[in-house]
């Protein structure tokens, strides 16, 4: 389980979540994204293509990061959710807070 950050040619920070985003590793993701925000990044995409599961703490960290990024005039979008993860966002109504696309290409194109 780990997080990878890369910047695309339009300075969008793409964050890959490999494995799970849960209470035990949410702080690591938070710090990495906040460091990128501090470093000037404003457009973020979190890619869940390789993610098995997300718990409520993982959802919470996304909510809090999204808020912080919006306060700096940026945006955080999500992509690559499988059917189960998509359902998780829908039942918690967090699908109304985030722009969610199927692929990272669609998320990047939407910026």
């Amino acid at each position, binding site marked *: *389980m780990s997080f990878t950050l890369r910047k695309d040619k339009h300075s969008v920070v793409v964050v890959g979540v490999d494995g*799970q985003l*849960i*209470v*035990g*590793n949410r702080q690591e993701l938070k710090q990495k994204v906040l460091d990128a925000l501090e470093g000037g990044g404003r457009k973020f995409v979190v890619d869940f293509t390789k993610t*098995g*599961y*997300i*718990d*409520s*703490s993982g*959802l*919470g*960290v996304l*909510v*809090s990061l999204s*808020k912080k990024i919006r306060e700096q005039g940026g945006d955080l979008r999500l992509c690559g959710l499988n059917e*189960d*993860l998509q359902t*998780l966002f829908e*039942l*918690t*109504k*967090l699908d*109304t*807070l985030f722009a969610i696309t199927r692929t990272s290409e669609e998320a990047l194109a939407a910026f």
Partner: protein
Amino acid sequence: MTTPLHLDVRRRAGGGETETELSLDVPSDLKYVGPAVELIAGRLPSGPLSPRRIRFNFRTALAEALANAIAYGNHHDPARVVRVLVQVGHDVVRLHVTDEGDGFDPDEVPDPTLPERLELEDGRGLFVLRRLVDDVAFNAKGNSVCLTLLAG
């Protein structure tokens, strides 16, 4: 890396059918939630639950229950443990998670999908838990939860 996590797996006859029981004591540190979930999910006998339900419903529900027990039940106290017992029958999996805390009233937890709570970082655990499994039952004290996943 040495780990304090030691899974005990037993097969026992109960009610005319053989049941597998997995038990694990988890220290009250959130860093053990992920490893504990993987350890148990990795040894869960195939049968009642589909690989998809094990990957998502079972793992997420166990992670939620463990995190709640460690943080709100045991208050991260290293002297306390969270006890996990998984009973796997022919057509059901029961997941018992017990902490050493004073318990709580699950009916007092507010709905995290209310508009005024939607942007809060915390408070979704129990809500998510109730939607991932077929039944959530607390003991009277509120320090032990039994999560039931029916076959499928």
